[in-house]
């Protein structure tokens, strides 16, 4: 059963009709092949039309689509011998960020990412991908581990943002994020990030200050959610669509701004319509980036990363 977004309603109706017809033809002698083919090509045309001109807000919705492949799907398809590692060694385990050792296309690596969860129970367990300080501190611990054993680090970003709660504040949410950013920029091994869904603010950059940053075609990456931005600057959460336009949060805009290095294409209708292919493409892009960084001395990797981020915003000042 597909989950359809609001703006996909006409497509949903068509696809529903096709399904119904197929069902009818199964038990009747009606010959409806022509009708089905006609509807199918119509549905495809509509899908193409809709997805060729998605607004930034619609992309935000696609990026948050509940059926979109998540961290665990990528791990299952791309990583052998994945060995999840838990805990920040200070307070607890936070499943909003999952991480561990694994073998990616022959390379032993540390792989870390936000996990939003696939069903209600999973979403609660993973706190919808909103990490607490323990999540970021675990990420730092795993990056330390990578450095100690000279392993590359791969991160997959998919979070609405860091969790806003009393405990999170008391245990130093901001310090935890700051340390994670620091560890990212400081690493002496390759760090490769892919924004696969939602790149929500500080919670995202905590894992993404990387040598190479890619985004999936329909993913978004932003300093604040369109809803949050709308309620602050427009004083009305209903203006989220305007805020999404203004924030320039799409992969295409961010590529133009030279914040991301590459865009990984998605199948027509979004990653959730053909997850296997998307996951492979993400794997290919990570491998390409990784091969380019293998053999670069650690100090050089760190210096390049620092210089890259220290230059952002240097131009654009009058």
């Amino acid at each position, binding site marked *: 059963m597909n989950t359809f977004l609001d703006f996909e309603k006409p497509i949903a109706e068509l696809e529903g009709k096709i399904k119904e017809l197929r069902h009818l033809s199964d038990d009747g002698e009606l010959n409806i092949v022509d009708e089905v083919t006609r509807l199918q090509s119509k549905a495809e045309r509509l899908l193409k039309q809709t997805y060729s001109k998605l607004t930034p807000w619609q992309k935000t919705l696609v990026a948050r689509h509940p059926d979109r492949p998540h961290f665990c799907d990528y791990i299952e398809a791309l990583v052998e011998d994945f060995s999840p590692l838990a805990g920040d060694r200070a307070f607890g385990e936070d499943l909003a960020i999952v991480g561990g050792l694994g073998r990616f296309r022959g390379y032993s690596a540390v792989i870390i990412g936000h996990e939003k969860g696939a069903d209600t129970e999973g979403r609660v367990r993973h706190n919808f991908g909103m990490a607490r300080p323990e999540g970021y501190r675990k990420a730092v611990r795993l990056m330390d581990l990578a450095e100690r054993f000279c392993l590359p680090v791969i991160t997959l970003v998919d979070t609405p943002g860091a*969790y806003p709660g009393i405990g999170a504040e008391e245990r130093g*949410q901001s310090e935890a994020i700051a340390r994670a950013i620091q560890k990212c920029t400081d690493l002496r091994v390759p760090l490769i990030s892919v924004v696969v869904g939602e790149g929500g603010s500080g919670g*995202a*950059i905590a894992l993404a200050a990387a040598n190479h940053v890619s985004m999936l075609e329909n993913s978004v990456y932003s300093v604040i959610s369109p809803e949050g931005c709308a309620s602050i*600057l427009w004083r009305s959460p209903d203006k989220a669509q305007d805020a999404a336009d203004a924030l320039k949060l799409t992969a295409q805009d961010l590529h133009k701004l030279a914040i991301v290095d590459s865009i990984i294409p998605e199948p027509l209708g979004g990653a959730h319509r053909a997850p296997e292919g998307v996951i492979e493409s993400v794997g290919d892009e990570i491998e390409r980036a990784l091969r380019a960084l293998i053999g670069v001395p650690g100090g050089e990797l760190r210096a390049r990363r620092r210089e890259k981020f220290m230059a952002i915003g240097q131009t654009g000042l009058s």
Partner: protein
Amino acid sequence: MNWITNSVLPKIQALVGREMPDNLWHKCPACGQMIFHRDLEQNLKVCPECDHHMRMGPIERLAILFDDGQYQTIEIAKTALDPLKFRDRKRYTDRLREAQAKTGRQDAIVVAHGTIGGSPAVVAVFDFAFMGGSMGSAVGEGLVRAAKLAETQNAALIAFPSSGGARMQEGILSLMQMPRSVAAVDKVKDKGLPYIVVLTDPTTGGVTASFAMLGDIHLAEPGAIIGFAGQRVIQETIREQLPDGFQKAEYLREHGMVDAVVPRRDLKQTLGRILGLLMAPGPIAKIVALPQPELVIAPRNDPGTTPADVTETDGASPSG
């Protein structure tokens, strides 16, 4: 008698201007006490009645910080050009222009250098009056320049954040100022120079979650709000009453995030003492840190069959 309040008073006010009682007396936002402006300035903008620390502009702050009140400011980045052509209910360029007119500053940061208690120091102060002290490209540039100046002068770097967080109107570029500022202060720390953060009211969002929480030492002004998420957002998320003193400087000290809460009148002395201890260690043997070995993940021909050929060399070129 409406005509008096509506028409006569404004005219008098326009004529007499600054001399009107409005500007002579300040009401303490905490206890409501009326304080004569000269008394307030003399008391470093701290309420003599209840000790509430009011927000302070960057120039007032610099004046009470450096030895003999002597310092030099450096030119910081000029205006951020509106890279996103951002427009909410107002254009970003208009908001910038208004903030510049209001504060007389190009953006929300001032960088100065001089000595504090005899130790050389570069100080970066935020101006909350400039768009809530929000951090965009120009503020990031100011921090980078402050860090570079500290490196070249072998001086300590001291940051006084006072900011609502990242500047939304610069979108992703403002988010990128987080790693940018982190990398900048890290270079100062790598050089063995002290990096001290004095958290002032308020320090929240992307500013707290980057350079402001990475000091060698964190001092905070009494009562300053310091946190990541806004209180309203937290309340809406958890639907619970927030504890007393939540996100205040004293609360952060209790939770281990701040080394000391320092009253404004003691700040200069405290900073001078700490800088002296860190930068003039006295007649002890010089301790040389061990160099870090260079890490290299060596390339190999067939990634499919053999595990990564990992080498640890001492800066030598990678083998294999």
